[in-house]
């Protein structure tokens, strides 16, 4: 199978992948030079979490060594400085997501947190018995369970857009499933289990025609493709910092201003209030309304550095490089006898899920681990996807801008050796 040309790339005019200096990029990531089990680390588990460049590590260290203070409260120098760092990061995140206003960007713990926030603050007050929430067959548990919970509580139905054997959404079915009762569509931009890139812009347009808001789970997209929420015309967009080369425990929720303003707070406490008295309290304006308590300030600082790092990379040649890497992986991994690729959409990114005949995914993972190779094995927080393919687990290699063809070759050699062991 061949992957489609990179999203948003004019292949005639753009920089070619030969201008993408992966060795220089690799030197930015200190962990890549370490050994595991006596072998050079080959990190192919980026869909689980991405490694961090020195710039991000240094930003966090610098913050704690010289700049740490609580924000939004003090009049002293460090507090004002930390507050400025925090809000500058928010503005940078706004630009990264293509949002119109910084107040449309909420700092959250991650994509899961963002989705729960929308489920609680947007959907729960509006959802009535018999209403519907529309998700897709390839969602991560974090884009399933929050909706299940609110549907169960409100007597609403979860409906699921089906997919083909190749792992592509059946778009006719999507249109049919958009009904009078649909109160929200929630769909992943790029599937973590299959690598499928969904046509979220088109899907958002269809939802908008029916007056239905759409939430896009962008956890896997943020490290790979440029995001423009106004171009997508979506209502909510969620990303995780740790998947885009930033720290853990930090993420972004984009929400249209008028929607965020209409939403009830998720957590109560300090910082999300305007006034507090025992008789009653009033809430802060957005986005503070959703940022209760002292936030993960260091995480925000680290995320800012990660966004700066990504912005400094030639995105066009990065996208082209990753596309070539993915095609290479599909060809050589798929070329091993006894290997079956799972998820063969024509528009794919960054992920190769596969089965090895006669060897359970778990055993594959343990064996290649001995060669220093990190892949993920299991259900990838997508048990419905595993059920669809009738398997308990797959092995998954997932790539980032610092991976190389040589690393893929190392994986292939380890897989061939594993086949030898199990006969």
């Amino acid at each position: 199978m061949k992957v489609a040309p990179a999203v948003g790339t004019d292949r005639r005019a753009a920089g070619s992948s030969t201008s993408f200096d992966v060795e220089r990029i690799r030197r930015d990531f200190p962990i890549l030079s370490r050994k595991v089990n006596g072998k050079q680390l080959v990190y192919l588990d980026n869909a689980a979490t991405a490694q961090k460049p020195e710039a991000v590590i240094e930003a966090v260290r610098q913050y704690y060594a010289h700049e740490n203070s609580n924000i939004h409260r003090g009049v002293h120098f460090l507090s004002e400085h930390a507050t400025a760092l925090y809000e500058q990061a928010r503005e940078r995140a706004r630009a990264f997501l293509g949002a119109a206003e910084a107040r449309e960007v909420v700092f959250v713990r991650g994509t899961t947190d963002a989705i729960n926030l929308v489920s609680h603050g947007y959907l729960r007050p509006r959802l009535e018995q018999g209403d519907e929430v529309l998700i897709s067959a390839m969602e991560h548990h974090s884009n399933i369970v929050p909706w299940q919970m609110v549907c169960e509580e409100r007597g609403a139905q979860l409906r699921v857009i089906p997919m083909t054997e190749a792992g592509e959404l059946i778009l006719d079915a999507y249109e049919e499933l958009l009904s009078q009762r649909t109160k929200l569509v929630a769909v992943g931009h790029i599937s973590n289990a299959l690598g499928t890139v969904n046509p979220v812009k088109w899907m958002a347009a269809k939802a908008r025609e029916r007056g239905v808001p759409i939430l896009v789970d962008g956890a896997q997209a943020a490290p790979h493709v440029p995001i423009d929420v106004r171009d997508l015309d979506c209502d909510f967009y969620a990303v995780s910092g740790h998947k885009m080369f930033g720290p853990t425990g930090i993420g972004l929720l984009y929400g249209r201003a008028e929607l965020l303003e209409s939403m009830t707070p998720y957590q109560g406490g300090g910082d999300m209030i305007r006034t507090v008295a025992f008789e009653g309290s009033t809430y802060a304006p957005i986005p503070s309304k959703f940022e209760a308590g002292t936030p993960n300030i260091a995480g925000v600082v680290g995320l800012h550095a990660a966004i700066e790092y990504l912005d400094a990379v030639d995105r066009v040649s990065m996208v082209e490089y990753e596309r070539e890497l993915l095609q290479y992986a599909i060809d050589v991994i798929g070329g091993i006898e006894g290997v079956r690729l799972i998820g063969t959409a024509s528009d794919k990114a960054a992920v190769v899920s596969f089965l090895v005949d006669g060897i359970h995914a778990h055993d594959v993972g343990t064996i290649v681990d001995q060669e220093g190779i990190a892949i993920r094995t299991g259900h990838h927080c997508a048990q419905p996807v595993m059920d669809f393919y009738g398997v308990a687990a797959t092995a998954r290699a997932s790539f980032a801008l610092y991976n190389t063809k040589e690393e893929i070759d190392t994986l292939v050699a380890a897989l061939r050796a594993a086949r030898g062991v199990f006969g």
Partner: protein
Amino acid sequence: MKPELRELYQQIILDHNRAPRNFKQVDGANRVAQGHNPLCGDKLQVYLRVSDDDVIDDIGFQGSGCAISKASASLMTEALKGRSIEQAEDLFEKFHRMVTGNASEPNGQKLGKLAAFAGVKQFPARVKCASLPWHTVRAAIENVASPVSTE
């Protein structure tokens, strides 16, 4: 193969994975239980026919899972056939201590062929694979109704 891997995937384990013993349902089974590791997808059913004087006359298993869990189930059924319930429970304790690194005899001395799993303790993520069949058989003995897991 690297020595560490050889510790884990010993020949006896590979053999029992390829050709599991007692891979069957049991006629007249009077103790049955299901085991499931949702994290990795190992699933099995264990069947026992226990006599009136508490002896395991026959034992078998069905299901699917990784090489460690399948070989563990296979070797377990060989070890338990013909034993008393009391001996089975004792073996469970010893096996569990060995794979979790809590045994007084870390290499599984006195456990016969089950000593093949002594290497599992170096692979913490795989301990659950080795112990799932044992948890399941204990549930069968105690007639626990719902599927067990190692969680």
